[in-house]
């Protein structure tokens, strides 16, 4: 198949396989597909029998993969100030950059006049999130981070998968100077 673009010479844009008798009867291709499936079945079987990894599908969320990268982009958390409040100033950078539009923020006046602005609502719809990490990159005050773990990102209905501010603030890491003495934006 070729098509003509006005102003350009007639060119073949796709490298298609030629139709031959063997491709047209299909049986050879069907047999090839069955062979690939069977090959992987025996390969995974062999891995499982010799206790090697990658053999069987992980039964998420009951079990998680042990070989997850430490740089994996998993669950979102909100970083806290030393008084337990969120570091977020509700600037909407994450909500603006989010390609899945899953972040909802409403700002309100903070009692602390040096902070001025804090989130009243901070919801992440985890069922819509594509875990791209743009929100973490966009945040000017390092208020949102992503943990490596993907534990329990499940829910029986889609409203349970909207994480509100309290859920996201439920992160108590090992004492870390950066987190305990959070900086003042």
């Amino acid at each position, binding site marked *: 198949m070729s098509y003509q673009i006005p102003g350009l010479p007639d060119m073949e844009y796709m490298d298609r396989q030629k139709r031959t008798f063997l491709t047209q009867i299909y049986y050879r291709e069907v047999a090839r597909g069955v062979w690939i499936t069977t090959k992987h079945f025996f390969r995974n079987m062999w891995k499982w029998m010799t206790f090697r990894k990658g053999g069987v599908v992980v039964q998420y969320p009951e079990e998680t993969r042990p070989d997850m990268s430490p740089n994996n982009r998993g669950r979102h958390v909100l970083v806290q100030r030393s008084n337990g409040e969120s570091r977020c100033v509700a600037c909407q950078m994450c909500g603006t950059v989010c390609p899945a539009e899953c972040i909802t923020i409403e700002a*309100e*006046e903070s009692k602390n006049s040096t902070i001025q602005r804090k989130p009243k609502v901070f919801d992440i719809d985890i069922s819509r999130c594509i875990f791209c990490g743009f929100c973490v990159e966009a945040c000017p005050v390092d208020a949102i981070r992503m943990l490596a773990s993907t534990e329990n990102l499940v829910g029986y209905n889609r409203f349970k998968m909207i994480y509100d501010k309290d859920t996201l603030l439920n992160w108590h890491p090992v004492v870390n100077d950066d987190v305990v003495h959070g900086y003042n934006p």
Partner: protein
Amino acid sequence: MKEVTFTVDGKEITVPEGTLIIDACEENGIYIPRFCYHKHLFPSGNCRMCLVKIEKNPKPQPSCMTQVSDGMIVYTDTPEISEMRKAMLEFVLINHPLDCPICDKAGECMLQDQYMEFSGDKSRFNETKVAKEKLYHFSDKILYDAERCITCSRCVRFTEEVSKTNKLGILNRGDTSYVALAHGDTFDDPYSYCVTDICPVGALTSKKFRFKERVWYLHKTESICAGCSRGCNITIETKDNKIYRVRPRENEKVNQSWMCDFARDFYIDPMKNRTSGTQVDHKNVTYENVVGEVVSLLKEHGNEMTFVLSAYATNEELALAKQLIDSAEVKGIFTKPDRVWHEGSEEVKSDDILVKEDKTPNMTGIRKIFPAAKDLSEMIISDYKYAFVWGPNAAVDKLDGLQIISLSAMRDQVSDKAKWAIAGRFAAEKHGSFTNCDGIVQPFRRALKGENNYDELIFFVGILKGLGVEPVGRTVEEVRKAAE
């Protein structure tokens, strides 16, 4: 007027004598960055952002203070000038707090825009920035942040030249200077929100809009203010069918760049007591039923009916209403001063700047289309049996003993008393045009989705069809075209 020709970046431009270089360039598509210069304020030339190179002039000149002369050769884009712009931005940013994440101006800030366009340099300032007052309450409407302020003096010149209250001034010198009120004074100016629009940075912000929404999410609709007969050009900014703020739009002939505080407030607080649906004898019925009943009323009792016009109606609706009145041979046509949004609020009567005594937007349009319309107070009730009352706030005692058809966006005594009640829309919910006090016809677009599925225009088209008359148009555009 005498015209002069001069050259900018190798381009020959002819403008009237006395034009400033910055204006002449902007009219011809060359944008010169500026902070302190504003088209409708007297130039002060203190920000030094608009410096240009003029041939045979030893030093760069501020283009907002220099008038064009014949044969002048101006350069706005030499390496020397761009270096100067970078240096000026660096000066401005030395003590600027960079709290864009918590600043309401972020997204429409001139400092942000011009930094991105003309500089982009990293800060070399390692010392401590000068700390100033962050929350200076000018009034219950305006909040001032002295750290963000670049002391361009636009707001000061605004109170001196436009609102003429002389409330603001700049105190101290150098990096400790800030805008201040007289001791113990408040900034109670009927045009005070204008300073938040003209402020090039986020130093002066509106308390009503504070932290409500980021500006880049707001959908902007060009509209005309319905607060008084001046017809100020405005931009209604909405998100999710809710008005967040209203800002003036530039129009040299009507409102320059200004708008009163009063109108901004009533657009944000939605109109209370709205009517909804269609009722006959206080029972909800379908829209088609009501149109049918009104059509049969007009057919049978057209000559016993009086038509009370609304000065909130658009010119297009009035054109259809005129067709209706002519074809149904309705006898008396009256108007009324229906001032719905001015109830229960501190009212500015009128002033020399913008606010007019007549608080309705389209009284001039009524006078043009219905020259014979009289005021409602001149009506003699015994002449009529039915009254078609359009718009709220008709004097209810003037309509005693009449059967009322009410077409109104707002609930009041008349719509409660009406036998046939039809809900209407208010100005931000429909397309149309208003004729302002000077006779300028100004079109506007719909900013909000109305609660009802129909507006007054559709209602009149339905009635005209029921009467067997072909309406001059079924949409605003068609009616406008037919009127031309």
